[in-house]
């Protein structure tokens, strides 16, 4: 047996069925202090989830969700990676290693992870600027994301995009102008329909953006042409510093699609989000046209790193959400109380995650900046090399596709 030398309790998975927990004694020898078999863990459980409010729908998503142990551990891990990554970004921003705009997603992890678990990797997704979580779920690595935040050549956009402009396969950013991504998302949905591959587009926006005119134009066209588009409003209660009551004549964002059916979902419960997304995806794929989901969620940080986030809401409110509705805690409690995982096992995942983030941060701070030769590249696609004017008429720079 390979030896695992650590002062903490550690695990050894022997074969496929037994988990041994070791601890070092004062004499240095290892003793087994606990032994659990996978047979001890519940392989799957059924959970009651909150009923969704419905708009122009006869039926909604199921009121129960089945969670397997593997799924639970995977969701937990992904959400924890997302959480730690955002907190690390906070740290790096305060150290001025990340600059410009940085909009953090912590508190909203259940939305990104829940949505991804309800769609296929071949489906499409577009969101606004609070996009680090989605970049991760859509296939970006933590290293690439962090290196993009620090503006290095190893970044997912080679350092040229920054926090708000990260892209991946079937993920169209990362968009800085509020609401502008919604018509784009409908466009992707139109392309899906045109190409007939049974794919759909998930198109996200926030409660602040929900009052944008272009969104209503998009609703009209998507419904008229029955586009396979899931509109998702991530309602985190505040558009920058403006609470929803001060910005919207109607805060029932799931009804704002009017002729588009809608559902209001508990965005802090990953199972709720997953079931609602599956329901919505089924709706789109069956040719019924677009559907709208409002995810009720919360962000712990302010709007961006330059917003302390406490001038328009109280610390008590933030603390209350953290203690009562934290998405990671909710999942953890469910799994532990149903014997689907052990506290130690989850702690070990935490340790691994911490290490992964540290490693990524290390990469992000040591990777070199993009080369100056890259300055003018990527202006046009599929174009022969061309000359670009620099800051003065004698500066003739080179641009490659």
């Amino acid at each position, binding site marked *: 047996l390979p030896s695992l030398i650590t002062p903490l309790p550690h695990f050894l998975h022997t074969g496929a069925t037994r988990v041994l927990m070791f601890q070092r004694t004062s004499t240095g020898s290892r003793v087994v202090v606990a032994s659990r078999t996978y047979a001890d863990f519940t392989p799957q459980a059924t959970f009651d989830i909150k009923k969704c409010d419905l708009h122009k729908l006869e039926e909604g998503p199921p009121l129960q969700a089945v969670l397997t142990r593997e799924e639970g551990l995977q969701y937990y891990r992904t959400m924890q990676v997302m959480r730690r990554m955002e907190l690390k970004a906070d740290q790096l921003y305060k150290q001025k290693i990340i600059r410009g705009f940085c909009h953090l997603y912590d508190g909203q992890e259940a939305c990104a992870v829940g949505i991804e678990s309800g769609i296929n990797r071949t489906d499409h997704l577009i969101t606004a600027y609070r996009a680090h979580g989605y970049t991760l779920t859509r296939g970006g690595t933590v290293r690439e994301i962090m290196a993009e935040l620090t503006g290095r050549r190893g970044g997912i956009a080679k350092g040229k995009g920054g926090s708000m402009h990260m892209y991946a396969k079937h993920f169209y950013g990362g968009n800085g102008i509020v609401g502008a991504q919604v018509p784009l998302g409908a466009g992707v949905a139109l392309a899906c329909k045109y190409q007939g591959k049974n794919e759909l587009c998930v198109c996200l926006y926030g409660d602040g953006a929900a009052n944008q005119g272009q969104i209503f134009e998009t609703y009209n066209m998507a419904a008229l042409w029955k586009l396979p588009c899931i509109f998702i409003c991530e309602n985190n209660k505040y558009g920058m510093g*403006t609470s929803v009551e001060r910005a919207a004549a109607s805060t029932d964002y799931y009804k704002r699609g009017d002729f588009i059916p809608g559902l209001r979902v508990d965005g802090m419960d990953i199972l709720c989000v997953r079931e609602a997304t599956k329901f919505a995806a089924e709706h789109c794929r069956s040719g019924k046209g677009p559907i709208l989901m409002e995810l009720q969620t919360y962000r712990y940080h302010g709007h961006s790193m330059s917003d302390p986030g406490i001038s328009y809401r109280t610390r008590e409110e933030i603390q209350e959400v953290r203690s009562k509705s934290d998405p990671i805690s909710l999942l953890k409690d469910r799994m532990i109380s149903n014997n689907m995982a052990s506290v130690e096992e989850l702690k070990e995942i935490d340790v691994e995650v911490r290490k992964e983030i540290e490693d990524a941060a290390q990469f992000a701070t040591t990777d070199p900046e993009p080369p100056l030769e890259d*300055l003018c590249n990527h202006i046009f696609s599929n174009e022969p090399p061309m000359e670009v004017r620099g800051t003065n008429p*004698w*500066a003739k720079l080179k641009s490659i596709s």
Partner: protein
Amino acid sequence: MASLRCFFRSGRNAISVVLRREFHKTSPATLQVTVRDALNQAMDEELERDERVFLLGEEVAQYDGAYKVSRGLWKKYGDKRIIDTPISEVSKICLSIIFAIFFLSLTPPGCVLYRLTVMCAGLRPICEFMTFNFSMQAIDQVINSAAKTYYMSAGLQPVPIVFRGPNGASAGVAAQHSQCFAAWYSHCPGLKVLSPWSAEDAKGLLKSAIRDDNPVVVLENELMYGVAFELSDEAQSKDFVIPIGKAKIERPGNHVTLVAHSRMVGFCLDAAAVLAKEGVECEVINLRTIRPLDTDTIEASIMKTNHLISVEGGWPQFGVGAEICARIMEGPAFNYLDAPAIRVTGVDIPMPYAKILEDNSVPQIKDIIFSVKKTLNM
């Protein structure tokens, strides 16, 4: 002192207001005021002076302004005069324009007296864009509903409205948040376009803009907000206005004319200080207004120096510098040029995020110095 001024101007430090009152008979009392505070004062004074003036925009009221330019105004004037809007650029502009021309359609036409009354009865909104990048969503309204209305109505409907907010590059905000709109707005007849640099510019120009009966676009600069300048006694007065359409010679010189607006004025002055050591005296002109352009001041300067370099942060193609060069070609000053007029501009690419790339995407002081030397054949 010059180096201290350089220090302030380059914006490397955010310096808060420092009161320096000198009870000296010979020197006037000056005040160190940041551009942010100057804008705040301008709005405060105009809000106080005229009941019809009000401010609307995202986060301008309870949040004190996204960049704190409207700090304290909501507390002082309340909900009626300082209005937080939802994130709806187009409707915000529409509503502002309608406020500006509101009463005109309600009274019977024909009477000159009524027209005067009615113009006075219209409101005078200040419409803030969080940055001018977002104004692109509403630019149709700015051009088609604000700029052209007085013309289309043959003088019946003036639109006394101010659009203001930060314009151009900031620090690390990437492609969608770094664009300069000076050329875009200045292209349109019916609009006045201002681009302040110093605190004095900011205060005087914004006050003029608010008092002007026409749509005025005021292009501020986020990186200048925290920079402090000396505000003269005269500039501290509540009636201090800077005339629209008049450029200012910030630094006289004989060898070359540098024309710039906004943050680039500071860069030109810094370049001039370096070049002065080599015996090159640059005349630095602060445009202050982009539309209408003060061609006279530029021409008079060229007739003295025989060399022209325009400096701007925006893209070169069809930009402010391009317009200046074209006008000089078409006017009397062309015959006085000893070398082709040159533009120093931002690089012709979307703004990258990485620091090294961003730094090399906008003119630096060394680019200005290089261009001067090339122009003067040094």
